């Protein structure tokens, strides 16, 4: 019944049945927890539904079943079916509490990325490096997603999950996100990283992830807190690269900041003054 196929392959979606393991230590722990509770529910369901179906088959009046009207109370049974779930819950609560503590442990972060949600885009600021940029839905997706655009979404690569500027992070590094928002509440989620957290205007939330060293790649997600008309159109794309590649990328970004801006800020709104990197520069860099 369950298929552990990777998400976001564009051809067919029938195999998408279950959560994926993801590419971080936390996402794997969450996945294991998810499967544990799933199997607990599954076996309880087998017992409970089994009993119900047995009763529905066995005790039919059409099969001549006579009601046993004295069978209305049994202290033994009632103690049993109160105690058994209690024990199962305690057994489930222990690993869940353990993972929860790990999730909330932001000690030892190696780099910090400030993420600000806007209607309807994300701003990323590399606090340790001193640069940042906005990230919005890619132009192709944006064109195709207009009402009655006439463009088949299937013809657009990574439809609705593609951006102009990808976030770049190094693998094997504990990255701490500081999340906030400019206008309304948003939420930042990459399913493969296992965690999501709200970006609340006026407050700063923390979450962290550490992409496995052997899992560089591009990971995609979306805003997951209703934030208005274009809530469905502010994707999140993170490119996880080796530490060396990251250092090279960050150096290029910083170098791009130094000279006076050559190009006028084309699609960059006024609020972007602190992050002068333009879309074209960012795209050129990340492509390399």
């Amino acid at each position, binding site marked *: 019944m369950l298929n552990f196929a990777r*998400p*976001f392959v564009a051809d067919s*979606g*029938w195999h*998408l*049945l*279950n959560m994926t393991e993801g590419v971080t230590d936390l996402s794997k*722990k*969450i996945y294991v*927890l*998810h499967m544990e509770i*799933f199997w607990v529910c599954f076996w309880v369901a087998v017992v*409970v539904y089994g009993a*119900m179906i047995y*009763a*529905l088959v066995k*005790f*039919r*009046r*059409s099969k001549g*079943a006579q*009601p*046993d009207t004295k069978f*209305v*109370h049994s202290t033994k*049974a*009632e103690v049993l*079916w*109160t105690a058994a*779930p209690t024990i199962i*819950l305690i057994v*489930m*609560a222990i690993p*869940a*509490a353990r*993972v*929860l*503590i790990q*999730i*909330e442990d932001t000690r030892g972060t190696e780099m910090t990325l400030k993420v600000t949600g806007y209607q309807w885009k994300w701003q990323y600021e590399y606090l340790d490096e001193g640069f940042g940029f906005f990230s919005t839905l890619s132009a192709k997706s944006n064109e*195709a997603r207009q*009402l*009655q655009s006439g463009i088949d979404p299937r013809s657009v690569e*990574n*439809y609705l*999950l593609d951006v102009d500027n990808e976030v770049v992070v190094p693998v094997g590094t504990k990255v701490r996100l500081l999340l906030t928002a400019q206008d309304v*509440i948003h939420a930042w989620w990459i399913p493969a990283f296992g965690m*999501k*957290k*709200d970006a*609340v*205007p006026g*407050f700063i939330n923390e979450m962290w992830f550490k992409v496995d060293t052997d899992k560089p790649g591009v990971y995609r997600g979306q805003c*997951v807190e*209703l934030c*208005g008309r*274009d*809530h*469905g*159109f502010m994707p999140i794309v993170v490119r996880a690269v080796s530490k060396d590649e990251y250092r090279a990328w960050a150096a290029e970004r910083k170098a791009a900041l130094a000279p006076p801006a050559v190009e006028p800020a084309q699609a960059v709104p006024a609020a972007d003054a602190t992050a002068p990197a333009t879309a074209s520069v960012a795209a050129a860099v990340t492509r390399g």
Partner: protein
Amino acid sequence: MSHHEHDAAAAHDDHDHKPYGWQRWVYATNHKDIGTMYLVFACIMFFVGGSMALVVRLELFQPGLQFIDPAIFNEMTTVHALLMIFGAVMPAWTGLANWLIPMQVGAPDMALPRLNNFSFWILPFAFMLLIGSLFVPGGGPAGGWTLYPPLVLQGGDSLPMAIFAIHMMGASSILGAINVIVTIMNMRAPGVGLLNMPLFVWTWLITAYLLIAVMPVLAGAVTMLLTDHFFGTSFFSAAGGGDPVMFQHIFWFFGHPEVYILILPAFGIVSEIIPTFARKPLFGYESMVYASASIAFLSFIVWAHHMFTVGMPLAGQMFFMLSTMLIAIPTGVKVFNWCATLWRGSLTFETPMLFALAFLFLFTCGGFSGLMLAIAPADFQYHDTYFVVAHFHYVLVPGSIFTIMAAVYYWLPKWTGRMYDETLGKWHFWLSAIGVNVLFFPQHFLGLAGMPRRIPDYSVQFSDWNMVSSIGAFIFGFSQLLFVYVVVKTVRSGAKAPARPWEGAHGLEWELPTPAPYHSWTEPPSPALIARGAEH
């Protein structure tokens, strides 16, 4: 008030002493008339809210935006939820309470008939206001039924209209709840003890206390939205020293008991129907009562499991995870008791029983996904995805809605004196049961695969299951027209029902003549009748 008044003295008793025509309904003080109005109103709202859901499913049938603007999409999801919760399910429960509680506790009517009239007649105005808010400048309410600020404060003229509508619905619910409590506490016939009451009466009593406890909290929360928007307060704005997350805490302090308000009466109904068609008394009556009360108590201390991702301290997340998991225990007790009621019974499968059994299977399924959602670390993945949508629709549609339909099929012969068409009833059941699973089961897959909720368009890998879900939605939606047809046909031309259409039914309502007289128990039922009715 009516020219028939002079007949009353001449008549043998006061049966059918009532105003006729429109006055019968507008001036109604009779619990059955008011119950009927509540149920008809709920049915209309069910179809209006349902058509909005179909608009949503139509847009989600394929990736890309084919039919509606994203802003309209958000209005549809928001108003669909508000109509279904406050307009369909809650009034349906109050309608059933009106019809059944006086008959079941041996009372002539509800304790406060004029209040009863008032609490019903608030509703049409509240919902005219809410639905009307879709057509004002700035568009309808589109911030989700949870009304989270700051988003909801971006609404135009619809914001104060929706808030006032919610105030009115809340007032109606509180008045209805007061009436239920006073009726149950004061109008029980001599000899009907608290622990002799049918479970529907018990669960409604508990529901009524929940309503009185939390509806004012919702009213307070939305009033704070109103003052933030119009009177310069900053309850929910960080810029003025407030906190948007505080709204969520207040809202869900209302919202979690609210979900039990929507489901507890269903527990009561199922506890009436299953024993009837198993032909044996409910298993573990007292533990059912205590389990319902425990669930109600727990509902007050679990609210923040709706907001694990807002950035709560670890201790807070831990507390709300563990307290939420506890709910599985009393809920499990209930499910096991229903199973044990089936055990060694003599089962038949008439339409009410089919709906009650579908409740048992599918509500349990929603319970399992609920348990998964309680696990906070896993919830960081599930939260705000279609997995959550699947979960709460499993507990609300086959949970509450199926049970309301089961109740209508079950008591319709007593109410109208006519029998519904069993074949059509079964058709309605099977179409609904298949439709609801095709509709909602794939949404578990979509959520686990990473599809967020409340999005009007999705990336293409989600296309297949969305298409299946939409097909299910149209099967489910259109088969509900059959329900209306069956009920109308029964009322108009159904075959005459016997006084006891179900030989396994117990309870004082079955001791009344069929159709039930206009005034229920004008004389208290005799101890013998009470004893016969209370065989559980």
